Each structure stands twice: as C-alpha cells, then as structure tokens.
C-alpha cells in the first residue's frame, strides 16, 4: 500500500510540474533582463530579477493599460448578460413546455458544430450596418452568442436536479412564477450560476478572433489584441516585455479561477455529468 501511495505522489509531482511549467516560465521571464533570458533559464539567478520589463512595457507606449480595462468591461458586461439569459432559458427548459422546447433541450450543445469563423463575417457586416463596428458593445453581443449555449446546457442540468416539488410548494404558498425562480431556485443554484459566470467571463476575456475582426482602433483593443500587437511590433519578439504584459493579463483570471474552481466542479457535476 505504501508503494502505491509513493508512486501516486511521484506521478502527481510530475503532472504538477508539466502543468505549471508554462505559467512558471511566463512569470519568470517577465522578471528577467534580456541577457538573462537568452540563457533559457530554468532557475533564475536571484540577483538578475528586475521590474524593468513591467516599467518599459507601459512607458514606451506600445501597450496601453486600457486594454485590461476594456477586457474587464467586456468580460463583466457579457458575464451579467450571458448568465442572465442562460438562467432564464435553462430554467424554462426544465420547467415548462412550449413549442420547440423539447428540441431545444436536446440539441442545445449542437450549436457548437457551427464554427465561430462562420459567424464572424456576417456579424461584422451586421455591426457595420448598426454602426457598432469598433465598439466594445459589438464584442459583448458576439460573446453572448458564443457562450450561452454552454451556459444554458450547464444550468439546465443544474435546475433539473432541483425537485419540482419545491416549485410547486412555493406556488401553493402564494409565490408567483417569477418569485419561485428568484427566491427559491436561484439561491440553491449558486454553484451553477458561479460556474456559468466564470465561464462566460473567461471566454470573453480570452477571445481573440472576433476582437481582431471587430476592433480597429487602439483605444478599443482588448487584452488579447493588445498583447498580440505588442509582440508583433518588433521584428523579433521581445520576450521580457511580452511576458510582463501577458502576466498582468493572466493573473486576474488565475485568481478568479482559483477562487471559483470548487464551484466550477460542483457546477459541472450537477450540470453536465448527470445531464
């Protein structure tokens, strides 16, 4: 038995290092000067560590702090809209019948066989017609459609686990249909809501394709586009500055993810697996 526990620990350690290596390298390189980077360091010489990449990334005007702000705005607004739409639709599919509801319930995930690249040209044309090109709102609208099928699917499984007797009992006690959803169902569904909210936020924060097509001005760039252009500005990639900009964009999502990972697992357990 002890040998098995030992093997498990060795294996887990190996997995840990493979998983963490890219993150570690990103953070490490962001704190090293150019000459130290070129030695492909695995373990740094502590005396080399410096903040100059962080200072230079912003001071030379190549990257603007607004990219993080724009991404945060797009992420939060999409999170609110996407989660709300997913809640309403997911709840509706598990409690009510209407024309087409069974079809929608069964095939919601098939939405993902439609490649985003197929949507990007017509959505771009639509945004131009609506005079929304190069706005953050165009991104919010695009990311909503990209994320709600998964959100609805996950919450649908979640709501189905909540006994319908609970709804009925509340109705008998005089609650309206809306009150049942807001006061009874939502409070017990918080893990599912959190899972969907984090999913929507991260997808919006990370999305590159639509942002690269819809956004043309520097002022409206989101983080992925800003980082892409900082790395492409120089002939060769300036690794130190690129990694500094990358770290600033990655750390908030890491923190968010680490805080909510427990809920994500819980959300997927009821939402996806039993569905």
């Amino acid at each position, binding site marked *: 038995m002890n040998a098995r526990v030992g093997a498990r620990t060795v294996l*887990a350690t190996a997995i840990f290092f493979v998983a963490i290596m*890219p993150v570690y390298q990103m953070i490490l390189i962001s704190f090293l000067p150019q000459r130290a980077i070129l030695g492909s360091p695995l373990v740094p010489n502590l005396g080399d560590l410096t903040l100059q990449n962080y200072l230079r990334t912003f001071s030379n005007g190549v990257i603007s702090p607004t990219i993080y702000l724009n991404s945060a705005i797009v992420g939060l607004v999409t999170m609110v809209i996407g989660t709300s739409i997913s809640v309403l639709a997911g709840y509706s599919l598990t409690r009510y*019948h209407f024309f087409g*509801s069974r079809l929608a319930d069964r095939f919601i995930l098939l939405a993902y066989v439609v490649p985003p690249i197929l949507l990007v040209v*017509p959505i771009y044309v639509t945004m131009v017609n609506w005079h929304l090109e190069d706005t953050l709102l165009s991104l919010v609208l695009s990311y909503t459609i990209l994320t709600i099928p998964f959100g609805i699917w996950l919450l649908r499984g979640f709501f189905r686990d909540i006994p319908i007797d609970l*709804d009925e009992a509340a*109705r008998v006690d005089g609650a309206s249909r809306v009150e049942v959803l807001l006061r009874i169902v939502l409070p017990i569904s918080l893990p599912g809501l959190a899972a969907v909210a984090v999913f929507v936020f991260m997808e919006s924060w990370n999305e590159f*394709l639509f942002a690269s097509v819809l956004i043309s001005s520097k002022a409206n760039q989101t983080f992925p586009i800003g980082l892409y252009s900082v790395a492409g500005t120089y002939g060769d990639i300036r690794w130190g500055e690129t990694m500094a900009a990358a770290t600033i964009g990655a750390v908030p999502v*890491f923190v968010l993810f680490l805080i909510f990972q427990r809920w994500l697992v819980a959300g997927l357990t009821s939402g996806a697996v039993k569905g």
Partner: protein
Amino acid sequence: MSVRLPARRWPRSRLSWLSSDRGRDSLFGLALFTPALVVFLVFAARPVAETIVTSFSRKDLTQPELGTPFVGLGNYAQLLSLSTFWPTVINSVVLAASSAVAQIVLGFGVALLLNQAFRFRMLVRASVLLPWAMPTVVAAFVFRWLFDASFGPINAILEGLGLVSQPIAWLGSPSTALLTVITVHIWKGIPFVILVFLAALQTLSKELHDAAQVDGAGYWQELRHVTLPQLRYIIAIALILRFIWTFNWFDLTYLLTGGGPGDSTMTLPIQVYITAFRTFQLGLSSAYATMIALVLMTMTVTFLWLVTREKYQ
C-alpha cells in the same frame, strides 16, 4: 414538467387573457426563453443563413463592381479543386481527433489520480486546471517561447539530457510543427476533460464498487468492468465536445503558427479567415465555412447516433 395547479386557487390569474393554467405556463416558459431565442436568431441563425446564401454567389471585395452574381455551386467546385483543400481538411481532422483522444486518455488518468487521497492533492488539482484559465493568446506566446529554436527551455532541457544533439525548430519546421501544435492543444484543453471526469467520478455508484471489492476484484479489474462502463456516455460526450471545439478553434493555432510553416499547420478556420480577410473572397470563404459546418454536423450526428444507439440497446 410544468407546474400545474388548480386554477381556482389563483383568482387573479383569471384576469389573464389565456385562461388555462397550462397555457400560462407555456407562455411564461416561452417568455423566459425569448432572450436566448432572440440572440440566437439575430446572431446565429441569420448569420448562418447569410453565409450559406453568400456561398452560392461570387462576392469579391476587391472587385465590388462585379456585384454578387449567383454562381450556384461554383465556389464549392473551386474549393474542391484547390490543391490546398484536402491537406487542410486532413490537418484539421488530425489535430482535432488526436488532441481529443489524448485529452480523454490523459485526462481520465489524471482524474483517477486526483480522485484519490495524497498530500497536496488540492494544489495539484488547481495546477492541472490552470491551463484552462490561461488566456489563449498568453498560452500561444508562452509556448512559442518554450519551443523557441534558439533560446527555448525545451531545447535546453533536451540538450542537457543529451536527447538531441542540436536545437529543434519545433514550430518552425514542417515536420514537427503540427505535432507541437497538437501538444499545446492537449495542454490547453485537458482541464475541461479533467473537470468533467472528476465530476463524473463523484457520481459513480458506491454499491457497485463495494460489490466488486467483496467479489475480490483488483484495481484494474474494477476500473475496467465497473468504473469505465458507468462512464461510457460521459466519455463519448467529452470526446465529441473536445473534437468539435478543437476543430472549430481558430485562435490557438493561428497565434502559434498562423498556419505555417508552409501550410503544415493550416486548419480550416484559418483558411476561412485568410480567404475572408486577406484575399477578401467572401463567396469562397463562405463556401469554406459552410463546408466545415456540414462536415462537423455529419460527423457529430453519426457519432451521437452510434453512442445513443448503444445506450438504449
């Protein structure tokens, strides 16, 4: 399942224009679903329809004076005659299939391990989920660094171990680029699979496992005859989801290689992007995109049919 109650308990609902409780349930349900439906119609159904229509016409933004004449299946014929078409299809399928299978196999192993007790389990679990949270553009640049031919740590490690005699241009040479891209896809997509399997392992029937242990089943026997059969359906779903997502995923491959070197990592989404936004042949790019959706839909429906057929047999 609708909430059905005797109408007489709800006098105020009689004011409603639809008198049956059931009818009002339906209406309420539909009302809740409406926002999703509107978003779907405006930003998914209509774009899809537009793309399909465009795929039957010549639409070239560099020659707007030609208008958009109907050309029937002309774009599709042109597409199939391109020498790059089939290699691109094969690249996409190889990339998506091998990533999905590797993620399922490795992800299942990691989930089994994480489902057991050992020291620092929570730390390891958080670490294996981290790649999912890493922004795609960040992951792409970090892996370009790790696999860099001149300074990348991976070459440094391999040389240090004496496994290679000279640095390998992982992403820069046609023979290794696709394999390298697949490796990054596996790393980036595996957390989703681990999460799903970790969640699925919580739902396993404890009685079955107790029974297997009473019957003297060993670890591998139990895994093969008790655990795996219970997870068949979720494995199939995870496999198809990963395949679809990887197949349709433009960002990661584009940011790693842009489809190069040569066309060695060219995927269908990148091809669509280039056709639409570099050469501006919207008709052709629409035909490309429609084709991807058709191929995927056929594969998915066939796969789901096979899986569910087995499930209900």
